């Protein structure tokens, strides 16, 4: 196993790869968070489209969720990364720049992860909306609340209570999809682990460390999610 042990290779001391892996993990978290936020926005818009849109809007939302949920995330990443570069390059040609322009990896990754997870998020929000008792919305209307007040005082708190477990699943999906973004060369956790494995000849140590970091991230996010669930379930008897 070479001359250095597992912990020396991955330490923070001289010659250790610890800082590099940690920066990769931070990049993974940043990518996942921005992808998750985008997914939440997409999910909000499309679930609204599915619930109260007119027919063409509904068809479009249905097509989006069916197609995206049936296609591998990896393919969506390839589409946005290479497709984005294709568009950028042809735009560059218009302005007299003959060279190939590559699409920023972070942006492509965020868009891909957001679009892929947005389809799941749409279904989560839609299911949660139907779990809101109609009487509560009627009561809010009877109080004379405007639609906007209804949304942020009644619908969002109630919706989140029902949607949080599903959003936890979506977050896990996002973390896993974010690992795939390493194929575009973005310097996130998997990519750094690959670099380390390549230059030390110790793939097992590096991928183990990456797996442990992913476990830490998902365990921590699971814990925060449970706290959020408790917060949004105040006043509900279990």
């Amino acid at each position, binding site marked *: *196993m070479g001359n250095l042990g597992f912990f020396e290779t991955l330490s923070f001391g001289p010659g250790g790869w610890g800082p590099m892996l940690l920066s990769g993990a931070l990049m993974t978290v940043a990518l996942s968070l921005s992808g998750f936020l985008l997914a939440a926005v997409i999910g909000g818009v499309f679930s609204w489209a599915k619930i109260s849109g007119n027919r063409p809007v509904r068809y479009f939302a249905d097509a989006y969720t*069916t*197609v995206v949920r*049936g*296609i*591998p*995330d*990896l*393919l969506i990443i*390839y*589409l946005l*990364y*290479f*497709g984005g*570069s*294709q568009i950028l*390059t042809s735009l560059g040609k218009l302005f007299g720049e003959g060279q190939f322009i590559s699409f920023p990896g972070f942006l492509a990754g965020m868009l891909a992860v957001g679009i892929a997870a947005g389809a799941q998020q749409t279904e989560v929000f839609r299911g949660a909306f139907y779990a809101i008792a109609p009487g509560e919305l009627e009561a809010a209307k009877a109080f004379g609340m405007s639609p906007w007040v209804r949304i942020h005082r009644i619908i969002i708190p109630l919706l989140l209570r029902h949607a949080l477990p599903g959003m936890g699943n979506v977050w*896990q999906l996002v*973390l*896993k999809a*974010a*690992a*795939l973004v*390493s*194929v575009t060369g973005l310097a996130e956790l*998997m990519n750094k*682990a*690959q670099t380390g*494995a390549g230059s030390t*000849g*110790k*793939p*097992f*140590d590096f*991928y*183990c460390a*990456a*797996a442990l970091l*992913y*476990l830490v991230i*998902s*365990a921590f996010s699971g814990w925060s999610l449970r706290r959020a669930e408790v917060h949004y379930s105040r006043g509900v008897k279990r």
Partner: protein
Amino acid sequence: MDFPFLWDTLLQLLPGIPLTLQLTFYSIVMGFCLALLLAFARLSPYRWLSEPARCYVFCFRGTPLLVQLFLIYYGLGQFESVRHSFLWPILREPYGCALLSLSLCTAAYGSEILRGGLLAVPHGAIEAARACGMSRLLMVRRIIFPIAIRQALPAYGNELISMVQSTSLCSIITLMDITGIAAQIISDTYRALEVFLVTGLIYLLINLVISRLVMLVEYRLTPHLRAPVTRTVKKPVGEVH
């Protein structure tokens, strides 16, 4: 739209379909067996059985499949003892590693689904089986298992469909499945959108067929939920009369 190019892409992608289907099928079969063992282990009253199973599920569900795949494909070769063991001919090949990691991963997800199904078996049914004097094995085979499978089938259907998509990761370790060929065409021609359209269509068709098959199995497994006369319009049965 450049139809000759789309047609050409489709023809190039077709040879990748058998590999994708093969990987899906074998990993699901192996993963299901392992999932069943894991689910029973997790529900067992003995902690030395339930704790390792819980830990397995936590590890495999908490890490991306890509890490597991790389750990098996690139990682295991680091050890001399693995390279000289009888398993090396399997672990040396990307196909063997892909199959192994896909099965291990789907087993973790599947075991949670099956555990839910097993927990949903009504206690009265088990008591009735005991009262009839059934042995444990007979009870599992005739009562617990059929009810649990029926409960778990819709969720397991979703898992099958996500497995089809998971096989696309094998293209990263050089296997030429549908996604592998698609990625190659994209990097040769830089026409991402067109290739994506054709590839996506193939995946959607595969998923459509699988979800139809699951629905068919579900239909066959739930004769008691069907109206006795087949000509009547389907309506929800089992509500309060």
